[in-house]
């Protein structure tokens, strides 16, 4: 594209001659012979070079040129004037002008001036482009810094000595923001680099390396993280730093652990079922042979065993069904003295069999309480059975006793106290006893009993208080409101229970 030149000269014929010369050199020339004419042109000025005779001593043109230069700083001014007014022109325009020529203009001088003007123009253009690029880069840098900070992973950049040179916001939040400290110190609270460090491997071969680590935050929390590394290279392609990106997968691992133990529990439950079925087989065999031999003693024993096994299997199946489906309770007013006596009767059979003394202290007229009697009875029997088991398993003493007390504490409530002098519970057992699938009875327990009993009591709006000491015994105090809860109490159903597992690690993200 041809360079445009605005030619300002009052001497028309001189201007024409210059124009011919310039056009021959591929310039596009616009001629004006007065300031007024220049002004109209000025509004949509596109020229890059202005070649002007200031027409001194009149200074109108000088002002015009100053104006042009201040509003279009990229324009290159070349001045031509008579030898005697050159000093004045220089004085007035100073460095606004790229070149001063003396009239009459010599072609070599003009060529040189034009060449210089064009050099300036191209330099200016280059500068403009660089400035624009620089701005873009700065914006990009801000954007990348934002991305770096907001990525939902821990990011750190490390040098060859594993010193942190940059970390993102999440990293700073959980591990502090000390630049220059060692990665292994911050992540693992160690005094020396870890074995199999993926950062070291990336420094070695320039490739990304994954690992899974357990790291400790500044508040002492342990997180499982999945780590990837990436090399950062200088212009020569050498790895100067390594970026390490760690995703917190603690919740995932927790869930996986829970699922693993769930699988184990179900495995051990099926083992228990098999044992019960075998014992049931035994009962049936003895019943069969007893009948064939008319052996009264064997028949009685076999019948008891079949009864006991069917009871255990029934209980386990019911528990599994209860767990598999959360059901509505059907409340009815129940004579609590009668219900307590029934519970006592059920528990007595079990206690007698195990040589445990069972005592009852059931107040005479306790009145009515709104409960689902099936589930409430099952829950209470479960507490009683556990008390008997705690006695049976206890080898520290000979005489064992379970007491069952039912009374009215006032305040429209009813209380049950089940107390044994059995083996007692350690802290772990106390904390976990209501947990699904937790059992302290090995293959004899399903880990469902107390979990369900606890839920039944909770659904009734009741409370459970536990006191226990190892080898001394355990005391459960269960209190129920006499009226059913106004709104059905939402006790975590199985689905919600699974959700709780996921929410377990709140604030771990």
């Amino acid at each position, binding site marked *: 594209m041809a360079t445009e030149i605005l030619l300002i000269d009052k001497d028309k014929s001189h201007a024409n001659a210059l124009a011919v010369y310039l056009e021959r050199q591929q310039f596009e020339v616009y001629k004006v012979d007065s300031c007024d004419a220049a002004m109209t042109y000025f509004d949509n000025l596109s020229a890059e070079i202005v070649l002007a005779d200031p027409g001194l001593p009149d200074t109108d043109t000088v002002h015009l040129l100053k104006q042009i230069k201040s509003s279009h700083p990229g324009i290159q001014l070349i001045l031509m004037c008579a030898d005697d007014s050159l000093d004045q022109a220089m004085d007035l325009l100073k460095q606004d002008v790229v070149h001063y020529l003396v009239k009459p203009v010599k072609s070599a001088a003009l060529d040189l001036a034009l060449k210089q003007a064009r050099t300036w123009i191209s330099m200016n253009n280059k500068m403009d482009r660089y400035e624009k690029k620089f701005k873009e880069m700065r914006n990009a840098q801000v954007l990348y810094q934002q991305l770096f900070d907001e990525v939902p992973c821990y990011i750190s950049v490390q040098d060859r000595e594993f010193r942190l040179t940059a970390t993102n916001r999440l990293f700073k939040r959980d591990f502090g923001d000390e630049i220059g400290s060692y990665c292994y110190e911050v992540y693992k609270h160690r005094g020396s680099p870890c074995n199999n460090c993926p950062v070291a491997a990336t420094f070695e071969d320039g490739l990304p390396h994954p690992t899974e680590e357990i790291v400790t935050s500044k508040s002492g929390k342990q997180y499982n993280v999945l780590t990837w590394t990436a090399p950062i290279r200088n212009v020569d392609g050498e790895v100067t730093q390594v970026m390490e990106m760690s995703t917190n997968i603690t919740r995932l691992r927790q869930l996986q652990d829970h699922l693993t133990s769930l699988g184990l529990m179900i495995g051990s439950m099926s083992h*228990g079922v*098999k044992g019960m079925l*075998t*014992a*049931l087989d*035994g009962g049936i*065999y003895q019943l069969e042979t007893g009948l064939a031999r008319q052996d009264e003693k064997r028949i009685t024993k076999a019948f008891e065993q079949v009864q006991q096994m069917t009871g255990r299997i029934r209980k386990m199946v019911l528990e599994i069904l209860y767990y598999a489906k959360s059901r509505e309770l059907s409340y009815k007013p129940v004579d609590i003295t009668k219900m307590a006596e029934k519970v006592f009767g059920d528990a007595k059979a079990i206690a007698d069999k195990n040589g445990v003394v069972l005592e009852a202290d059931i107040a005479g007229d306790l009145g009515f309480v709104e409960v689902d009697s099936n589930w409430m009875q099952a829950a209470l029997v479960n507490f009683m059975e556990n008390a008997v088991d705690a006695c049976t398993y206890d080898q520290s003493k000979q005489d064992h006793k379970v007491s069952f007390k039912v009374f009215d504490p006032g305040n429209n409530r009813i209380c049950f106290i089940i107390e044994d002098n059995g083996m007692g519970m350690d802290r772990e057992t106390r904390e976990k006893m209501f947990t699904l699938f937790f059992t302290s009875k090995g*293959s004899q327990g399903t880990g469902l009993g107390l979990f369900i009993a606890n839920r039944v009591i909770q659904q009734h709006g009741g409370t459970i208080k536990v006191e226990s000491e190892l080898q001394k015994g355990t005391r459960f105090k269960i209190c129920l409101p006499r009226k059913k809860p106004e709104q059905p109490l939402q006790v975590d159903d199985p689905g919600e229970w699974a959700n709780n597992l996921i929410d377990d690690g709140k604030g771990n993200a």
Partner: protein
Amino acid sequence: MKKILIVDDDPNIVDYLVTLFEDNGYATCSAGNAQDGFEMAKQEVPDLITLDLEMPGEWGPRFYRKMSEEKNLKNIPVVVITGFSGSEHAIGKAVASLTKPFDRGELLAIVKEYV
């Protein structure tokens, strides 16, 4: 009379096996865990042992290893009766492995073969 030692931690199953074997003309003795079982084996030197794998304290395989180190016990045939399916081969030298609930005809046939 040939004698069978029953090692199982479930008293109901011990009772079942005792009755079953005695009805079929065998003498029995029994133990509820591996330690007692080992003592009983040394004392009684039975003609066959039925062994549960999962018991509180020592497990079945440990019992078997201890037993095979005793000169006069190591040739006694062992029948594994376990609730774990898939662990039938936990004791490679056992003459047979049954999973609970087992078929009593099958068990009696095995016993008859080895005693």
